[in-house]
């Protein structure tokens, strides 16, 4: 079965962000200041120091890893600098 494309991505595709801590590159999309989606790939997963640390501690929480705070901060800064568009605001400005 072919999985179709998310209609939201057709409207506004994600943009690359380089983490300032480990230089992992992820694809980021933000529809608002609080909404974020982050697509990782294998090199980014291997590069992320926090994720590696979480793996080392796995067992306590089954290895679940909620977020990398360095990456999160990088994305927030990128959004503030306008490198990651906030779609809410883009659409508000266009209107």
């Amino acid at each position, binding site marked *: *079965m072919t999985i179709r494309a998310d209609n939201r991505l057709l409207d506004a595709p994600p943009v690359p962000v380089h983490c300032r801590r480990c230089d992992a590159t992820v694809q980021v999309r933000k*529809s608002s200041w609080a*909404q974020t989606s982050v697509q990782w790939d294998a090199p980014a997963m291997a590069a992320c120091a926090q994720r590696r640390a979480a793996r080392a501690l796995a067992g306590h929480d089954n290895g*679940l890893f909620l977020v990398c705070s360095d990456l999160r901060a990088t994305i927030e800064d990128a959004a503030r600098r306008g490198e990651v568009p906030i*779609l809410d605001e883009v659409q508000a400005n266009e209107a």
Partner: protein
Amino acid sequence: MDPETDEVRQIEAGAVPTRFARGWHCLGLTRDLGDGKPHTRNAFGQRLVVFRGADGRLNVLDGFCRHMGGDLSQGQVKGDDIACPFHDWRWGGDGRCTRVPYSRRVPKLARTTAWMTMEQDGLLFVWNDPERNPPPNHVEIPRIEGADSDEWTDWHWYTTVVNTNCREIIDNVVDMAHFFYVHGAMPTYFKNVFEGHVATQYMNGITRADFPPPADVPTLLGTTSVASYWGPSFMIDDLIYHYEHEDQHTVLLNCHYPIDANSFVLQYGIIVKKSANLPQEAAMQAAVGLGDFVKLGFEQDVLIWKNKTRIDNPLLCEEDGPVYQLRHWYEQFFVDAADVTPDMVDRFEFEIDTARPREAWQQEVDDNIANGVQVWVRG
């Protein structure tokens, strides 16, 4: 005519998959299945027999006897074997025919399918793989801390048949808004993470104030939930209920196995952590009470599923969760292991902005209270 605005969105839906997901599937509690009697399980489009032999092993075999097609699950356990009710042919847990009591010898090729099984935390799991490979190490089901602890209750368990393809229940992982409209919860935080064979939903919520609270229970302020599917069918939900005076720690299992492409067996189990305020009996009562509440929740889902159509191209707004990415993740279980692609297993995070939904929902709740409207009443 503006083609942008006048075009009608068509619902698209392909056929349901013809194969069944690769992965560990829970068939039920070992305390039920391991009583030394044969048990029937209709799963993966076939009949299975589950039995514990005298050797203590819990076995899962193809349910139909290779001799004349008798239903082994209607037979008897004799020694380590299952005996067919039709002609008493004996089948061992490895799938080999061990004995035909009225014959000098067992014919060649007297072998049936034996399923790989695992007993863990009071649960029986069976490994399904259309390619017939054993499970890779990294797909194991994590242990559930409270399951074999005296500090927690035993499993309180429910089973029900749902007549739809099991993808519908998977969609719940990302469906933030339905928790308000279908289940009467008000999510305040919602995030999904998919990575490898694990799909996780982090959700915090508060109680709708326009709900009549159940009688004789303390006021529920909210819930914190971390729920992960470990593979295609087995979800462990670490679920904390925040009451006025204390937190109640629970584990909710939500698991299923497909009967066929258009029906599945939904099972859920609950254990509750005992506390000073919640000794054995009260904790078990709490488990039963929460179980009834969860049952109601699934019944609400089932009512929707029964009447909805399958949809492969859901039309999403920005406050919806990552339905498409979830389906990419889910697809990994329906292709050969060699055909699993990075877009199915690479880590993906999606945090919803709950501000706008909360604003709308609070307004709706306030209006209901002002107008004396009760949305619906808990059973």
